[in-house]
Protein backbone atom coordinates (compact mmCIF):
# COMPACT_ATOMS: atom_id res chain seq x y z
CA UNK A 1 0.00 0.00 0.00
CA UNK A 2 2.86 2.41 0.81
CA UNK A 3 4.42 2.37 -2.64
CA UNK A 4 1.00 2.47 -4.29
CA UNK A 5 0.08 5.53 -2.28
CA UNK A 6 3.32 7.22 -3.28
CA UNK A 7 2.56 6.48 -6.93
CA UNK A 8 -0.81 8.18 -6.60
CA UNK A 9 0.99 11.08 -5.04
CA UNK A 10 3.27 11.27 -8.09
CA UNK A 11 0.26 12.23 -10.18
CA UNK A 12 -1.02 14.62 -7.55
CA UNK A 13 2.42 16.15 -7.27
CA UNK A 14 2.62 16.50 -11.07
CA UNK A 15 -0.46 18.70 -10.88
CA UNK A 16 1.20 20.91 -8.28
CA UNK A 17 4.45 21.01 -10.26
CA UNK A 18 2.54 22.10 -13.35
CA UNK A 19 0.76 24.82 -11.41
CA UNK A 20 4.13 26.13 -10.17
CA UNK A 21 5.52 26.14 -13.72
CA UNK A 22 2.45 27.94 -15.05
CA UNK A 23 2.77 30.56 -12.30
CA UNK A 24 6.42 31.13 -13.23
CA UNK A 25 5.54 31.45 -16.92
CA UNK A 26 2.83 33.98 -16.15
CA UNK A 27 5.24 35.99 -14.02
CA UNK A 28 7.71 36.01 -16.90
CA UNK A 29 4.97 37.05 -19.33
CA UNK A 30 3.92 39.84 -17.00
CA UNK A 31 7.56 40.90 -16.87
CA UNK A 32 7.63 41.23 -20.65
CA UNK A 33 9.30 37.96 -21.64
CA UNK A 34 8.90 37.04 -25.29
CA UNK A 35 7.25 33.82 -26.40
CA UNK A 36 10.66 32.57 -27.53
CA UNK A 37 12.10 33.23 -24.07
CA UNK A 38 9.20 31.33 -22.49
CA UNK A 39 9.69 28.39 -24.85
CA UNK A 40 13.43 28.35 -24.12
CA UNK A 41 12.76 28.46 -20.39
CA UNK A 42 10.34 25.51 -20.56
CA UNK A 43 12.59 23.41 -22.78
CA UNK A 44 15.62 24.02 -20.58
CA UNK A 45 13.52 23.09 -17.55
CA UNK A 46 12.66 19.76 -19.20
CA UNK A 47 16.32 19.19 -20.08
CA UNK A 48 17.44 19.85 -16.52
CA UNK A 49 14.86 17.47 -15.02
CA UNK A 50 15.65 14.74 -17.54
CA UNK A 51 19.34 15.06 -16.76
CA UNK A 52 18.58 14.76 -13.05
CA UNK A 53 16.45 11.68 -13.74
CA UNK A 54 19.26 10.09 -15.75
CA UNK A 55 21.80 10.86 -13.02
CA UNK A 56 19.64 9.61 -10.15
CA UNK A 57 20.93 6.31 -8.71
Amino acid at each position, binding site marked *: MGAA*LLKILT*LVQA*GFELKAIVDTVREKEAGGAT*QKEISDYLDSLVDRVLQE*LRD*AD
Partner: protein
Amino acid sequence: MKKLLIAVFLGTSLAIGGCGGSLMVHQPSEQVERSPKQLATEALDQASASLAAIARALLNDYKAGAYTKQEKDKYTEEFVKAREYIRKGRLALEVGDIASAETQAKLTQNLIRIVQAELTKLKAKEEGVQ
Protein backbone atom coordinates in the same frame (compact mmCIF):
# COMPACT_ATOMS: atom_id res chain seq x y z
CA MET B 1 -9.75 7.12 2.54
CA LYS B 2 -9.59 5.14 -0.70
CA LYS B 3 -12.47 7.13 -2.20
CA LEU B 4 -10.74 10.37 -1.28
CA LEU B 5 -7.52 9.24 -2.94
CA ILE B 6 -9.37 8.22 -6.08
CA ALA B 7 -11.11 11.60 -6.16
CA VAL B 8 -7.80 13.42 -5.72
CA PHE B 9 -6.23 11.25 -8.36
CA LEU B 10 -9.00 11.84 -10.89
CA GLY B 11 -8.96 15.56 -10.21
CA THR B 12 -5.23 15.72 -10.74
CA SER B 13 -5.36 13.64 -13.88
CA LEU B 14 -7.90 16.05 -15.27
CA ALA B 15 -5.78 18.99 -14.17
CA ILE B 16 -2.65 17.84 -15.93
CA GLY B 17 -4.83 16.20 -18.56
CA GLY B 18 -1.93 15.15 -20.74
CA CYS B 19 -1.04 18.82 -21.18
CA GLY B 20 -4.04 20.02 -23.08
CA GLY B 21 -6.19 20.31 -20.01
CA SER B 22 -7.63 23.22 -18.18
CA LEU B 23 -4.36 24.60 -16.84
CA MET B 24 -3.09 26.70 -19.72
CA VAL B 25 0.53 27.76 -19.69
CA HIS B 26 -0.10 31.04 -21.45
CA GLN B 27 -2.54 33.62 -20.23
CA PRO B 28 -5.50 33.47 -22.63
CA SER B 29 -5.84 36.71 -24.48
CA GLU B 30 -9.29 37.52 -25.80
CA GLN B 31 -8.33 40.78 -27.43
CA VAL B 32 -5.41 39.69 -29.57
CA GLU B 33 -6.02 37.09 -32.23
CA ARG B 34 -3.15 34.63 -32.32
CA SER B 35 -1.57 33.33 -35.50
CA PRO B 36 -1.40 29.59 -36.26
CA LYS B 37 2.32 29.77 -35.50
CA GLN B 38 1.65 31.28 -32.07
CA LEU B 39 -0.97 28.63 -31.35
CA ALA B 40 1.44 25.85 -32.34
CA THR B 41 4.14 27.42 -30.16
CA GLU B 42 1.72 27.50 -27.25
CA ALA B 43 0.79 23.84 -27.82
CA LEU B 44 4.48 22.93 -27.67
CA ASP B 45 4.96 25.09 -24.57
CA GLN B 46 2.00 23.35 -22.94
CA ALA B 47 3.51 19.97 -23.77
CA SER B 48 6.91 21.05 -22.47
CA ALA B 49 5.44 22.31 -19.19
CA SER B 50 3.49 19.09 -18.63
CA LEU B 51 6.54 16.99 -19.40
CA ALA B 52 8.68 18.97 -16.94
CA ALA B 53 5.96 18.61 -14.29
CA ILE B 54 5.48 14.87 -14.54
CA ALA B 55 9.22 14.24 -14.86
CA ARG B 56 9.92 16.37 -11.76
CA ALA B 57 7.22 14.52 -9.81
CA LEU B 58 8.64 11.15 -10.84
CA LEU B 59 12.14 12.27 -9.83
CA ASN B 60 10.99 13.40 -6.39
CA ASP B 61 9.03 10.21 -5.77
CA TYR B 62 11.86 8.02 -7.04
CA LYS B 63 14.09 9.69 -4.47
CA ALA B 64 11.38 8.97 -1.87
CA GLY B 65 11.47 5.26 -2.76
CA ALA B 66 8.19 4.97 -4.66
CA TYR B 67 9.83 3.50 -7.78
CA THR B 68 12.53 0.99 -8.53
CA LYS B 69 15.50 2.10 -10.63
CA GLN B 70 14.13 -0.04 -13.46
CA GLU B 71 10.78 1.76 -13.35
CA LYS B 72 12.49 5.15 -13.17
CA ASP B 73 14.73 4.31 -16.15
CA LYS B 74 11.76 3.08 -18.16
CA TYR B 75 9.79 6.30 -17.68
CA THR B 76 12.88 8.43 -18.22
CA GLU B 77 13.24 6.76 -21.61
CA GLU B 78 9.64 7.68 -22.44
CA PHE B 79 10.23 11.26 -21.32
CA VAL B 80 13.33 11.50 -23.51
CA LYS B 81 11.18 10.44 -26.48
CA ALA B 82 8.65 13.12 -25.57
CA ARG B 83 11.44 15.71 -25.37
CA GLU B 84 12.54 14.70 -28.85
CA TYR B 85 9.00 15.30 -30.16
CA ILE B 86 9.12 18.79 -28.70
CA ARG B 87 12.54 19.44 -30.25
CA LYS B 88 11.25 18.34 -33.65
CA GLY B 89 8.21 20.55 -33.19
CA ARG B 90 10.37 23.59 -32.47
CA LEU B 91 12.49 22.86 -35.56
CA ALA B 92 9.33 22.49 -37.66
CA LEU B 93 8.16 25.90 -36.47
CA GLU B 94 11.46 27.47 -37.48
CA VAL B 95 10.89 26.38 -41.08
CA GLY B 96 7.20 27.33 -40.98
CA ASP B 97 5.82 23.80 -40.87
CA ILE B 98 2.93 24.52 -38.50
CA ALA B 99 1.13 21.23 -39.11
CA SER B 100 4.20 19.23 -38.19
CA ALA B 101 4.74 21.30 -35.04
CA GLU B 102 1.14 20.64 -33.99
CA THR B 103 1.60 16.93 -34.65
CA GLN B 104 4.72 16.82 -32.46
CA ALA B 105 2.86 18.60 -29.66
CA LYS B 106 0.05 16.03 -29.90
CA LEU B 107 2.54 13.15 -29.89
CA THR B 108 4.07 14.55 -26.71
CA GLN B 109 0.65 14.87 -25.09
CA ASN B 110 -0.24 11.31 -26.05
CA LEU B 111 2.99 9.94 -24.65
CA ILE B 112 2.41 11.73 -21.34
CA ARG B 113 -1.11 10.28 -21.22
CA ILE B 114 0.31 6.79 -21.77
CA VAL B 115 2.79 7.25 -18.91
CA GLN B 116 -0.03 8.50 -16.68
CA ALA B 117 -2.08 5.43 -17.56
CA GLU B 118 0.87 3.15 -16.80
CA LEU B 119 1.40 4.80 -13.43
CA THR B 120 -2.27 4.18 -12.68
CA LYS B 121 -1.93 0.52 -13.68
CA LEU B 122 1.14 0.12 -11.47
CA LYS B 123 -0.78 1.54 -8.55
CA ALA B 124 -3.74 -0.78 -9.16
CA LYS B 125 -1.44 -3.77 -9.47
CA GLU B 126 0.26 -3.00 -6.16
CA GLU B 127 -3.10 -2.61 -4.48
CA GLY B 128 -4.26 -5.92 -5.97
CA VAL B 129 -7.13 -4.26 -7.83
CA GLN B 130 -8.27 -6.05 -10.96
